[in-house]
């Protein structure tokens, strides 16, 4: 590699790094400033009072529970459906893809208007908990999970693998659990982590439906104390970032270990 190529590469990496990290740095900068504008220096006051914020801990817990429910729904509902369509109903692939893309095309406000009566009914008859939002979230994440699952399915010859498992004596359930799911592991993980990020970051729908989720509580804190709101936001971004970094890190390790000897 010539020095010119090296300089070019590092310049691009530096530029992208600057573009991505600058907002985070600004958030850190703002969250460590004193609350009163006339005071000088740095303080961790905003970070220290995070735990004492009302509703914050419970809203984080609820959002995490919602994310877990959404992940479960992905595993028991979306993955088998997508695999089944690929294996048995390939003609429906286009239609299913189109249906899965709809949440991306419809603005959140339109979705809220549409589902508000349904949630009124759910609040009265089932529960008022924000956890019930996981139902609408599992619809919102469809475009992302479908894409990552579909890409994983196209990359592996799932048809032949399924038939091989069947001829070796596997029932449909064992074929799905023992062969198809592990083969699609990366696709499922990618889809699930994107789903978690989306659930933890969702604001519009929960706010319009008057549910106190993590992002809604952050917005409320922001109205009374901007520094604390930014500190909480930065913490949540770093948490989600950590989650998203987990999958590629695992795969990278595996690839390094698997040296091709064939």
């Amino acid at each position, binding site marked *: 590699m010539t020095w010119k190529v090296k300089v070019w590469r590092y310049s691009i990496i530096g530029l992208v790094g600057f573009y991505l990290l600058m907002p985070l740095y600004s958030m850190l900068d703002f969250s460590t400033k004193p609350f009163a504008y006339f005071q000088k220096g740095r303080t961790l006051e905003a970070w220290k009072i995070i735990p004492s914020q009302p509703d914050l801990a419970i809203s984080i817990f609820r959002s995490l529970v919602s994310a877990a429910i959404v992940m479960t729904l992905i595993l028991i509902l979306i993955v088998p459906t997508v695999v089944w369509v690929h294996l048995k109903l390939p003609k429906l692939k286009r239609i299913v893809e189109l249906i899965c893309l709809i949440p991306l095309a419809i603005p959140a406000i339109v979705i809220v208007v549409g589902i508000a009566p349904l949630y009124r009914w759910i609040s009265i008859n089932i529960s008022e908990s924000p956890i019930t939002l996981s139902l609408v979230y599992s619809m919102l994440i469809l475009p992302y999970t479908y894409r990552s699952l579909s890409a994983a399915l196209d990359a592996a010859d799932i048809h032949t693998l399924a038939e091989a498992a069947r*001829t070796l*004596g596997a029932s449909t359930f064992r074929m799905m659990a023992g062969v198809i799911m592990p083969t699609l592991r990366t696709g499922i993980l990618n889809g699930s982590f994107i789903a978690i990020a989306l659930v933890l970051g969702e604001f519009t729908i929960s706010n319009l439906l008057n549910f106190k989720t993590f992002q809604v509580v952050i917005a409320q804190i922001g109205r009374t104390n901007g520094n604390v709101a930014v500190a909480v936001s930065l913490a949540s971004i770093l948490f989600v970032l950590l989650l998203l970094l987990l999958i590629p890190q695992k795969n990278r390790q595996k690839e390094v270990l698997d040296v091709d000897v064939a």
Partner: protein
Amino acid sequence: MSSAYVQLVDIAKHFGPVKALDGLTLDIAKGEFVALLGPSGCGKTTALRALAGLQELDRGRIIVDGKDITFTAPNKRNMGMVFQAYSLFPHMTARENVEYGLKLKAHKTSSDNRANRAGELLELVGLSSHANHYPHQMSGGQQQRIALARALAISPQVLLLDEPLSALDAKVRTQLREEIRRIQLELGTTTLFVTHDQEEALGIADRVGVMRNGLLEQIATPAELYDRPATSFVAEFVGLTNQIKVEVLNGSINAFGSNLDTLPGSIKSGSGVALIRPESLTVKKDNGGNGKVISTSFLGSICRVTVSLEDGSRISAQMESYDASNLTPGTHVKITADKVAVFVK
């Protein structure tokens, strides 16, 4: 045939207007290696998949060891199958792949037995040293060997091979072909092998069935299929043939100065086209001969000579390279035919 171990009885399958199988009947004896050969779309793979239970039938019955399995699910059939595409489970090592079928029968095999059996099979296919390798760490040939070991691990009633060699390069293909035959003879597993490569089929099978339009044209030993084709399709599809215009009289023809008998199934009298193998023709240098050499192709110990006849038609003869050494393009030659029965259509 009452001694048949596997019976496909009048099986039919249509895909829209296309008849993939049109009443195929096939019997395979226990321990026999049968190959199904035919052009693309002749129904050979559909027949194999029907036997595996991966293809539902419109009509017909499938009987294995006296038991009707026509409506039995594929996972209850006990068939070992090796696919054309690489089909090893990517998240399992070679050993885990081989053990997979045994694990599904966990109540019948203890984990020690399973490990022993997997070890035996990996040794049988010569890949004990690769037991802990993942599929992406192995070459195509190695992956297909593991797939073979995996299919054999469950001690299948029938081993089904769906063009398992077609994705491999020529040298590996020949090696693995011979290995498959060795293992099949060693274990005595009844085997159905589907291929479009006649060299493969003729090279390893006890009997070869030639299929066309969803039906068997002929099923016979490789030698019989080659020397005594029952139909003009078989004669043309298996091996090379020259098409020579002839007159049939009382069941024999005159070609290149020799009287040749016709095979059963040929036309009885009148004008026809005789299908003569290149190796049945001999070409000798002769200035007064009726042919002229157009080209020669050297194929190692043998040589193929293309000759133009007086009427403008061309024929191909195959002979020892040594005998063809004096035949250069433009040489006048005389052609004679060996006295073997030929098919006339």
